[in-house]
């Protein structure tokens, strides 16, 4: 393996891993606090992608349309998440886990069909925006600036979330509710509000990932299921409910995929699952998770 190949596979692996981190982080935060495994998290991501396409084509006359979409699309997804939490999820916290799965699975179908209804079945694309649409030469390899931008976004969101959770009053409340719901309630924390807030934050992250993806890929139906499986792998490897775990898991998955394709392409698809099995056997609670 040459130096260029090493650099190429590493950068491509990490840049894809970063987008997956954003989605997995939302999934993980929601599970950590609400104890809801949101199967429809991938659908929120896909909704973000379609909104990104919708907004950029709506605002195509305005310079920097994509940046407006990046600002508003995730917020719209967060609002959608808030509506889902308040009107649907809130009713089933006391019920069995099975109802969560049925409800969130129904949401996959509803959101998928809604996207199909609103945006059609064709493939849509969004061009990479200025100033991140060029190329740079790194180690003799031409590399798109947009992928570096994705890595930057992933890192920024990771650090931002750590600061939010560790050092702000909001983060303290969230951690308190996560740790002990009844006690937090007794101490005067508005638990339903925290739940809604956390679900909206998770949805925002999914929407953000959904908005960041189209410039390097296509907007298409079916992307919801593709990412949700990868996100499950990430949170299982990293530890469900752990933010650093999601970060580590995403980087591991990205690199595993990139180098798997380089070294043994025939088995590349299987590597992630094999690692997941190994982790489940050795550390069922994930690399950075806490045992129950």
């Amino acid at each position: 393996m040459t130096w260029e190949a090493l650099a190429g596979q590493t950068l491509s692996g990490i840049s894809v891993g970063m987008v997956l981190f954003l989605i997995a982080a939302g999934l993980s935060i929601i599970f950590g606090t609400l104890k809801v495994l949101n199967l429809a998290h991938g659908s929120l991501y896909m909704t973000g992608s379609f909104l990104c396409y919708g907004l950029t084509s709506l605002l195509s006359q305005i310079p920097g349309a994509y940046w407006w979409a990046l600002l508003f699309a995730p917020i719209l997804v967060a609002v959608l998440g808030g509506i889902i939490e308040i009107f649907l999820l809130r009713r089933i916290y006391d019920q069995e886990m099975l109802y969560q799965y049925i409800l969130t699975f129904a949401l996959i179908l509803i959101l998928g069909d809604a996207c199909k209804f609103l945006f059609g079945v064709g493939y849509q694309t969004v061009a990479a925006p200025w100033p991140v649409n060029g190329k740079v030469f790194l180690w003799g390899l031409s590399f798109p600036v947009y992928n570096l931008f994705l890595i930057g976004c992933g890192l920024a969101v990771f650090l931002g979330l750590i600061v939010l959770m560790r050092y702000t009053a909001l983060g303290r409340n969230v951690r308190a509710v996560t740790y002990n719901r009844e006690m937090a309630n007794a101490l005067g924390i508005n638990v339903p509000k925290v739940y809604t807030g956390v679900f909206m934050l998770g949805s925002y992250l999914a929407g953000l990932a959904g908005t960041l993806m189209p410039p390097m890929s296509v907007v298409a139906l079916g992307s919801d299921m593709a990412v949700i499986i990868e996100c499950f792998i990430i949170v299982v490897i990293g530890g469900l409910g752990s933010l650093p775990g999601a970060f580590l898991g995403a980087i591991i998955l990205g690199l595993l995929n990139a180098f798997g394709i380089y070294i043994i392409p025939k088995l590349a698809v299987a590597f992630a699952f094999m690692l997941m099995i190994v982790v489940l056997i050795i550390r069922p609670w994930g690399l950075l998770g806490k045992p129950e």
Partner: protein
Amino acid sequence: MKRRVIRSIVLTVSIALIFSWIGPAQAAEKTPIVIGFIHSMSGAMSMYGISSEAGGKIAIDEINAAGGVLGRPLKMITRDDKLNPETGLREAKDLLLSEKADFLTGTISSAVALAISNYVKREKKLFIVNISQSSSLTEENWHRYIFRIDTNAVPYWGYAPAIALAKTWKAKKIISLGFDYETGKNSLKAFKEKYLQLVPDAKIIDELWAPLGTTDFTAYITKMANSGADAFFLACIYGGGELAFTKQAYAFGLYEKMKAIQPCAGDVETWYQVKKGESYPKGALATCRYPFWAIQDPKSKAFVEKHQKLVGFWPSYGAMNQYFIVYALKDAIEKVGAVDTEKIITALEGMTLNTFVGKVPIRAYDHQAMMPNWYGVMDFSPNLTFPHITKVDVIGEEGYHSVDKIKALRGGK
């Protein structure tokens, strides 16, 4: 009360009378010759169905305006197969039994085509395919009642790109990337078979396979960029996958680093929304099934205009094929002098269609029309807003499996 009853009786009787009067009057006119058209009219592939329907309609309007066929008008009845073989078969049965269709045409899904093909074989009715690409329809699964006026997967994905590459760049070290499923594997196999025969010192240095539906190809692209190949071949990566691949390959500078052979990239359906300045398969050698911008015959120009007027977008190759199918049926019926399936089949066998893309013979052995496959280099030109093939050249019968090859395939079954 009584009056009301009487009034309603009078009304019913008079309505019945009116209808019985209209009925025979209609029958007294010439009954139309009915062409059943089964296609994907809703869902992901509906663009092709709508476009093909428009192509057929243009031909029918032209023919009817000129007096029809044997003095009878043509009529096309459209049904949606929803890409589902059972639905397609049900619609085919209904078209033959209830609508008394004389011929069946259409289909994009090869599975639907096969279901209808098996049905018409039993019913001894004619079925002409306008899009479905699976070569087995006219090779291993061929029978007397199926025709195809369209290319198929062998020339389009494999042989034509191979011949085009051998005529142009003669790349020696090729890396391939394909979707990991049957059509992907078959298209690489066909490409290799033809290309290595034409350029014996060439080599496929590596074969990469991505799961069907992949939209993130970055790791494959960085690998291809560092593979030392002088060209890459895309085996059946189409639609959303192709758009995503192209975007990423363009961003990674892959099109500058090596030559690209990207079958399918020449078809307008994938690219018509892409504008200048956005990523496209820059300089790639691509095949195309209807490069209307490069066809000089004014009939083609008129056809493009009529299609635009009818449905509001550029015609797909399916529209052109359906147009030719209707004309082929007209010619055959006129030659025979009656709507007689057996005689029409005999007339179609070996018939040469005189079309706006030139003379297209229908090969008697496998009922496959020798539709040309065009190729060229992807670029922009001042007249069109989207990237398209330029320096267009054409490949005819040499792009298809030879009769001997098909004999061997059928024998091996």
